[in-house]
């Protein structure tokens, strides 16, 4: 972690200020420090400083077995805990050439979409609050609570699930799971138009987001910006479409792509994705097959020697797991390509030249989760 590096990069003029935004700042949603060079109210240059919650997860994984690693992946992007678990499980299953039961694929897909909904709801709440619309926080958290209750009933934890295990699920879903999920879909379909009335159509909100933080498609690809942030720039990068895993090849859904590339487009992608998630769950929830919740696995999981790569779409973009195995029960090297890591470092492209108030809107629209960057 370097203390101050912006002065080595740009020429500082007399009226320029260099200030630190963070590490403790409400709009960074975690411990992130942005070193910002300001000319009056205009942002000249930004350097993000990360590492305040670096826990060395990749190093820890080298000493842990694969079922143990699952529990560490929760702690990266805690709002996409299920997808993180799933990524490691899929990688291990592919490497061992285990075919998981259909039931597992269906339940994983439903849970991933519920998790995506919960994540987008929290993002919507916090994004509104960042821009001064406090009510969104109450609306979003009220509805998110219902998803967390479903999670709690089914696997005992609300945020960090660790419900997946190589070969399937820890245990079967709760008997109430299907009914409660269907109740939630009916409830949330009615609530989503309220979200639009409250924030999307708000003229102050639109003025603060339209045309702010422009990112072209070419830049999005060059900087590796994936997930809703990339799709807001017209970069078609939804891995559920392009490299389907679990039960995504069995459902009909649209990939949401907006081409404007501004903060409002990134906002709209997430709002539309919530509706698509509801559609996906609706198609699967009544057809869950009943062929068991886990495949037959050996008591000690060893991967064959070789290299394995698996990509999944989390709520924030592309998570890739790269395992180098030497045939032991622990990985020789494991790498997590986290979506937020690449998304963060496009910040200077987006915010330089704009006002400092827009920086808040831009960092909110990227939907950063800091533990995922530091790992």
């Amino acid at each position, binding site marked *: *972690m*370097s203390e101050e*590096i912006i002065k080595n*990069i740009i020429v500082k003029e007399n009226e320029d200020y260099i200030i630190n935004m963070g590490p403790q700042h409400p709009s960074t949603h975690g411990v992130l420090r942005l070193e910002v060079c300001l000319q009056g109210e205009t942002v000249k240059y930004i*350097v993000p400083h*990360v*590492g305040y919650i*670096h826990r*060395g997860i*990749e*190093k820890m994984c080298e*000493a842990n077995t694969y079922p143990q690693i699952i529990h560490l992946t929760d702690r990266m992007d805690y709002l996409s805990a299920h997808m993180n678990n799933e990524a490691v499980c899929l990688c291990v299953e*592919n490497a061992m050439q285990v075919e998981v039961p259909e039931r597992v694929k269906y339940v994983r897909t439903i849970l991933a979409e519920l998790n995506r909904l919960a994540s987008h709801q929290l993002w919507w709440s916090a994004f509104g609050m960042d821009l001064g619309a406090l009510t969104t926080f109450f609306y979003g958290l009220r509805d998110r609570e219902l998803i967390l209750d479903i999670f709690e009933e089914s696997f005992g934890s609300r945020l960090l699930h660790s419900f997946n295990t190589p070969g399937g699920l820890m245990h079967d879903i709760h008997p109430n799971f299907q009914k409660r999920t269907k109740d939630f879909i009916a409830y949330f379909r009615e609530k989503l138009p309220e979200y639009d009335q409250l924030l999307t159509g708000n003229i102050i909100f639109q003025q603060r987001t339209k045309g702010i933080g422009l990112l072209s498609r070419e830049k999005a*690809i*060059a*900087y*590796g910006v994936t997930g809703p942030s990339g799709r807001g720039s017209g*970069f*078609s*990068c939804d891995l559920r479409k*392009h490299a389907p895993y679990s039960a995504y090849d069995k459902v009909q859904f649209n990939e949401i792509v907006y081409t404007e590339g501004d903060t409002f487009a990134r906002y709209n992608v997430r709002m539309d994705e919530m509706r698509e998630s509801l559609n996906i769950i609706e198609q699967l929830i009544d057809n869950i097959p009943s062929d068991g919740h886990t495949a037959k696995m050996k008591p000690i999981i060893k991967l064959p020697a*070789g*290299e*394995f*790569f698996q*990509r999944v779409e989390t709520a924030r973009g*592309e998570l*890739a797991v*790269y395992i*180098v195995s030497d045939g032991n029960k622990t990985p*020789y*090297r494991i*790498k997590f*390509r986290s979506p937020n*890591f*690449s998304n*963060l*470092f496009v910040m200077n492209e987006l915010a330089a030249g704009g006002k400092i108030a827009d920086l808040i809107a831009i960092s909110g629209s990227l939907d950063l989760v800091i533990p995922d960057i*530091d790992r």
Partner: protein
Amino acid sequence: MQKQELTDFLKGLFPEAEFPENTQLPEMVVPAEKLHNTANLLKSDKNLAFDYLISLTAVDYLKNMTVVYHLESTQFRHVLVLKTVLNDRENPVVETVSDIWPTVEPHENEVFDLFGIRFNNHPMPRRLFLTDDYGFPLRKDFQDEVNIIERK
């Protein structure tokens, strides 16, 4: 392009590269001094068009350091694993590719931070997560008696 087709095409384009067999994804190993030219061609060739770098990382094999690039073409949707082997494990140096894929800049900082691999001509060389006097923790011979407790 499918895996076999892609490998055959690359073999014609890069005669000096090695192509390991029986891998999950198509792989190509190039010498470190050819890396920058190879990367340039991989992106600019219109039949390959690897414009999206998914991830960059390194692996310490004790006898050498290997830098691993995962590339994808957003146009053709094919994926390639590009590798380069650095035999000088104590002072590994490789050319940066941040002028080709800008996303790689923080990834290279991270690899320097955790492995001690230096990237020539990097626009902003710095340690990303750790303090300047910390070692390189993802090297296999790294020892930290205070913070890392060895499991018996």
